[in-house]
């Protein structure tokens, strides 16, 4: 049976190859920093389960040291000229689109297939496993038809990842920080603070505090999942549900979505907000957040009104 372990091995080998190619790229003055960074990530993917908790912690400290002292850079050149790309696009265009769509199509098909035919792959991880299989199929099909130099996909992939840089592991780092926050009981403290700040006797005031609290705490934690249990314990359960008799399904469902509005407005949600800015090579790292605020704020207001109308 295919498990997530297979995907980790695939990711580990990919990062190892990036590290190797990075070390050989003499045009990048910081090539050894890059090689060490992707090499450590390869080690984490391949051997993380054997390093022990403290060993993994030391690995993270090393990653932070490399990135924090500015040892990661990217090669200044190596882009394929636009006219060469245009010429190739004229020749291969429809085929390229077909290959690009293999990955989402495989993720889609595999998700259903592995649920109908249990035993082939871990059904809980069906989409991630299918995505990885889709990558392998797309690569094989693309290589067979385009016949590029053998290492071209890895070289180009490495260049893309170098342009993302240390931001590539920011989401994983923030998720880990959330675990330390949970261990230290940060959520309970914030919940108590917000609980004491609510005006007494006003239903709308309580709904407002719940909705805004969900959004704000999500912005701090970068994740509505972390905010939800805290805000429910501080405001949702004692006031909205117990005292005012609100429908718990509405309070929870729309409260969570109020939190999602916060996710749109915070750099802490790095995988949604900062990573795409790096991936699209935007000049402003907060460009995606800027583009989202105009939707997030009115939608937050709508969610608060929805709770007020639908729950009571």
């Amino acid at each position, binding site marked *: 049976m295919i498990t997530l372990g297979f*995907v980790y091995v695939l*990711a580990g080998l990919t990062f190892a190859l990036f590290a190797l190619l990075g070390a050989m790229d003499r045009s990048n003055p910081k090539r050894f920093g890059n090689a060490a960074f992707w090499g450590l990530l390869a080690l984490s993917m391949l051997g993380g389960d054997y390093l022990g*908790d403290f060993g*993994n*912690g030391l690995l*993270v400290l090393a990653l*932070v040291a490399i*990135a*924090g002292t*500015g040892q990661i850079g990217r090669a200044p050149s190596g882009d394929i000229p636009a006219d060469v*790309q*245009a010429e*190739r*696009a004229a020749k*291969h265009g*429809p085929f390229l*689109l077909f290959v690009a769509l293999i990955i*989402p199509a495989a993720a889609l098909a595999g998700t259903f297939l592995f649920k109908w035919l249990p035993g082939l792959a871990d059904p809980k991880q069906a*989409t991630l496993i299918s995505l990885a299989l889709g*990558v392998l199929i797309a*690569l094989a099909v693309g290589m067979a038809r385009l016949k590029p130099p053998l290492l071209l*996909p*890895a070289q*180009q*992939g490495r260049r*893309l990842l170098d342009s993302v840089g240390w931001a*590539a592991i*920011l989401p994983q*780092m*923030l998720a880990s*920080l*959330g*675990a*330390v*926050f949970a261990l*230290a*009981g940060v959520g309970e*403290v914030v919940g108590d603070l917000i609980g004491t700040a609510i005006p007494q006797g006003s239903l709308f005031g309580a709904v407002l505090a719940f909705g805004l609290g969900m959004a704000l705490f999500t912005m701090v934690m970068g994740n509505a*999942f972390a905010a*939800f*249990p805290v805000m429910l314990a501080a405001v949702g359960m004692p006031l909205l549900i117990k005292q005012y008799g609100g429908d718990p399904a509405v309070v*929870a*469902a*729309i409260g969570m*979505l109020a939190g*999602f509005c916060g996710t749109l407005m915070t750099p802490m949600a*790095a995988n949604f*907000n900062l990573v*795409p*800015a790096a*991936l699209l090579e*935007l000049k402003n790292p907060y*460009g*995606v957040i800027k*583009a989202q605020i*105009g*939707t997030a704020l009115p*939608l937050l207001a*709508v969610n608060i009104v929805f709770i007020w109308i*639908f729950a009571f």
Partner: protein
Amino acid sequence: MLVLIGILIIIAGFVLRFNPLLVIMASALATGLAAGLDIAAIVAAFGKAFNDTRYVSIIWIVLPVIGLLEAYGLQQHARTLIGRMKGATLGRLLTGYLLLRQAMAAVGLTSVAGHAQTVRPLVAPMAEAAAEAVNPALTDEQREEIKAQSAATDNIGLFFGEDIFLAIGSILLMKGVLEGYGYQIEPLHFSLWAIPTAIAAFLIHGLRLRRLDRRMAANKGAAA
């Protein structure tokens, strides 16, 4: 109260634009120390969480495929394709993507599209080409805004579609937490109550995309 120091470090660190990885590590250490943990325990807790969340970083395995296709001109082809569709404006294109992303997420297909898989290779270049067809003299600022709005549309479609799906993590979390308080609620109820917000998100963002359309077309070449 002292454990809140980690939150202050995060906010200050992001505002002062220190390297975020350093800021996160400093915040974790300060929070752990404030809670009475020793350094070795904090490092181990962080390491365990890092290892448990590796699946977050496996998305980068798509890059060799994207790199290969881009080297052969995928972005150019995406632009050409949009150039051929007469009615495809920037706003209509992104609104269509928004609807598609919401619909897919609503049936649980969240990883099918995304910033690495679809936005960078397809959606952003198509959006840029659609705007260029109307306004050939786009400024760099306008191009930047179009790309940012392509990523934003992906996020909004994902966030306000996925909660309609029964088996998504957030629904299971809500069910679990409410059960802890003695409320047994079927996942379907949470799903249904996600629909009004999904519609509102589509209307609000769709409206903004229409206005983006006009803004990119109207001030021919002038910075927005």
